[in-house]
């Protein structure tokens, strides 16, 4: 039991690093937040109900903005549901508010609450209500409570991180398998481009273009992914049958795939794709998570089960740990290595499709240098390039670490070029920690 615990802590040491980074960026972006949108409306309605009991009469004043409209709508619904009376909803400028106040004063006459955002609540119109509208009674101006919270930890920002990392994280699953067998796959970045271009082209030319059906689009994507799988199978065959170093094979395939992508696309973006194609990349059908992110999480779950519970996973580790010992134990080494390269290429193809969906087009520049980020994620996640070691959740942690760092540095206004320098040292640091521990 203790041994397992020790091994767990060691295997997932990157998680602690990730949490530390999150804490750091949270501290650096900790500041005053004003609630906005529907959430703010809910909060405000609750505050009004608790201060004024049943049936307060309320005037809602917001600006003509989407966020404010959401706040006003939610607030109105909640108040009405609680039995309150919303006398008017103003969406506009101070003069509109003045007009509304005038109307109320001329009409029923009594007003308990003026509810608004922090901006509208501070309008001068409401500064001296007693003098200006003595008939209204003593209405109180209520605005959402401001609070302190890190920008980094806002739900929008966290979703942003997840979307940013989706494609890289999906590719990192396949890369982890290849690295565990002791290989490397440099072709994945180019395969993103090839897959995106092929999928877009198939949709445009074969599935009916702008009028393509969901089934047609799915088949087009499947065809693109399968072609990537074929390239992976070719790499795997070169590595297993002819013993060509993986670095060389996949470097060659990187050039080939990139060239093919440019050729197929004729160096132009393909964007004659139906609007509905963005469902995979931008849609959010479950718990508000983008579908691409849900797909990524599901794939990690499956990959984890494969690597830790299934025979094939065991074989992948054994082949990477000691290929000859595995072979002499009756492990089908060739098939296992082939699987890793095919899986990597197929996942790269899938990543390309997700990217095409996010951007609603296919272009040969997609995924450029992504292989470097993918390898960084895998290595930071604790996999050994020598093979035999690595964990799926380690890789996910590695991918998240990269995304968190990039995002955190964006929030704290650190420039792109500096970000790359930092990332380079983080990669080196992760390997260095490993080396020092292994001494």
């Amino acid at each position, binding site marked *: 039991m203790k041994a397992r615990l020790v091994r767990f802590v060691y295997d997932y040491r990157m998680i602690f690093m990730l949490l530390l980074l999150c804490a750091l960026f949270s501290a650096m972006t900790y500041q005053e937040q004003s609630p906005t949108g529907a959430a703010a409306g809910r909060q405000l309605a609750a505050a009004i109900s608790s201060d004024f009991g049943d049936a307060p009469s309320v005037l809602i004043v917001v600006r003509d903005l989407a966020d404010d409209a959401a706040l006003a709508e939610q607030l109105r619904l909640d108040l009405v549901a609680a039995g309150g009376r919303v006398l008017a909803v103003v969406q506009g400028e101070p003069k509109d508010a003045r007009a509304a106040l005038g109307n109320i004063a001329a009409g029923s006459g009594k007003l308990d609450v003026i509810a608004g955002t922090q901006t509208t609540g501070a309008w001068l119109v409401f500064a001296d209500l007693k003098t200006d509208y003595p008939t209204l009674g003593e209405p109180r101006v209520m605005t959402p409570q401001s609070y302190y919270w890190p920008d980094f930890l806002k739900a929008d920002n966290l979703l942003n991180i997840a979307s940013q990392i989706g494609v890289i994280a999906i590719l990192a699953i396949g890369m982890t398998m290849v690295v565990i067998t002791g290989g490397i796959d440099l072709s994945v970045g180019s395969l993103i481009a090839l897959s995106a271009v092929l999928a877009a082209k198939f949709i445009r030319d074969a599935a009916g273009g702008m009028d393509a059906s969901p089934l047609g689009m799915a088949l087009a994507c499947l065809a693109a992914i399968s072609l990537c799988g074929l390239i992976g199978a070719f790499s795997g065959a070169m590595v297993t049958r002819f013993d060509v170093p993986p670095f060389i094979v996949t470097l060659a395939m990187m050039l080939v795939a990139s060239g093919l992508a440019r050729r197929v696309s004729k160096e132009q973006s393909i964007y004659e794709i139906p609007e509905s194609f963005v469902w995979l990349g931008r849609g959010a059908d479950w718990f508000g998570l983008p579908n691409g992110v849900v797909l990524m999480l599901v794939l990690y779950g499956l990959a984890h089960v494969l690597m830790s519970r299934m025979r094939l996973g065991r074989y992948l580790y054994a082949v990477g740990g000691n290929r000859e*010992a*595995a072979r002499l134990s009756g492990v089908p080494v060739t098939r296992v290595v082939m699987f890793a390269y095919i899986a990597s290429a197929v996942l790269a193809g899938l990543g390309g499709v997700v990217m095409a969906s996010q951007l609603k087009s296919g272009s040969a520049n997609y995924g450029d240098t992504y292989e470097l980020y993918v390898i960084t994620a895998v290595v930071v996640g604790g996999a050994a390039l020598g093979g035999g070691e690595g964990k799926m959740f380690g890789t996910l942690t590695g991918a998240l670490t990269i995304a968190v760092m990039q995002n955190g540095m964006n929030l704290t206004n650190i420039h792109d070029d500096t970000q790359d320098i930092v990332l380079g040292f983080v990669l080196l640091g992760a390997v260095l920690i490993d080396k020092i521990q292994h001494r």
Partner: protein
Amino acid sequence: MNGDQPESDQPNRDQANGGEANGGEANEPLLAMRGMVKSFPGVQALRGVDLTLRAGEVLALVGENGAGKSTLIKLLSGAHRPDSGTIAVGGREIVFQSPQDARRAGVAVIYQEFNLVAGLTAHENIFLGQESTRGGFLDHAGERRQAAELFRRLGVVIDLDLPCRRLSTAQQQLVEIAKALAFEARIIVMDEPTAALTAHETARLLDVIRDLRSGGIGIVYISHRLDEILAIADRVMVLRDGANVDERPIERVTRGELIERMVGRELKDEFPARSVKLGPPRLEVTGLGRGGAVRDVSFSVRRGEILALTGLVGAGRTETVRLLFGADPRETGEIRLDGRLLTIRTPRDAVAAGIGLLTEDRKLEGLVLGASVRENFALPNLVRLSRRGFVQRGREREEFARYVDLLKIRIPHQEQRARNLSGGNQQKVVLAKWLARNCEVLIFDEPTRGIDVGAKYEIYLLMNRLVEEGKAILMISSELPEVLGMADRILVMHEGRITGEIADARRATQEQIMQLAVA
């Protein structure tokens, strides 16, 4: 192989003693290690060991694996630093901060795995790090001349044009020795120098060591092979559990006593007896061949039989079993198990047919060192231990636990990495994985290489139990006592062919085998 060596040894020893008496430097030992203590996390490796070495003396250092020999040597080579204790060379106390310090003090350590750069030639290796230059350029001619002179002193000829990877193991060892002489080492430590040598090469090496000794060099000789120790050493020192347990001149020690001191108990016999009635042939091999390495090899192993395949290193023994197992593609030959013709193209086919191979080199070919012992155990058994592709981990753990008990494998827990086990326990894990596969034919390639005496005995017991259960064992071994002690029948190979068969191993002699091996 060394029946007459103790006698031929005698004059040398006298000579050396005489030399020392005349040498004047009275009783100052060449090397004195006092109270060496060293502990690693969780292990007290040395508990105050003393070691004294005189000039012109061969000191044999023996002990079971884990007794502390390697640690002691690493302190001497500067690879580790002692927790306490002193090292004096020639009466002067020295603190070794690094291997360079040890080298400067005249200490050379020749490890089992040589420290040679495979792509460089012998003389380039010898002068690596102390190249002689002329006007800023390497003095190739000078280095070659000096290297040739060193090899002449050693009485051997080494091709200076070949990269070291093309030299034989024995030749590489001589390059290591020449390297030690090149920086005028006065103390040479040899760790299992004959582990990979043939009997003939071993004899030659012992001659070289005698020469070094008469030249006044002190030698610490570590070996599991007691015959060699009795032949070459002047004094023997026994370590057990990190402490000195015995030390005496070689004349006053017997083989049995040594073994007893090493393991701390009396061993009645190095080889356990068995009584098995041999049955019909199980494994039959006919006309096996590939290139010049294996030529027309035919044999059969009977039910309940241990068949030994012996010969000099390079005779084609390992190559033969690799063909048989499908590890290398064979050009000719048929393999039958219980009369049924087998199609073996890969190791996978052989394993499926019920053949298991315990490789010669456990670390290189037998184990996934970074994986846990449980995972290593399960590797050839996963098809049986999984359902619809999912490994049934409960069954896996239970079954392994059974074999841990059965084979008395000493591990703290099942997640222990294979790398951290001693040689004997590693071999037991390899054995466990094949036993669980329920193999009908087991091939043991050097089953006890690098394993200490106590664990050896346990491995032998297990081999006996296997043949008692009706299995057939094919055993490759370079240790003739092991061949004679364990086998029912002996095949001798030479240059890829079987050159002889000794039907009753119990009555054979080492000389008889050697005759066939060099034929």
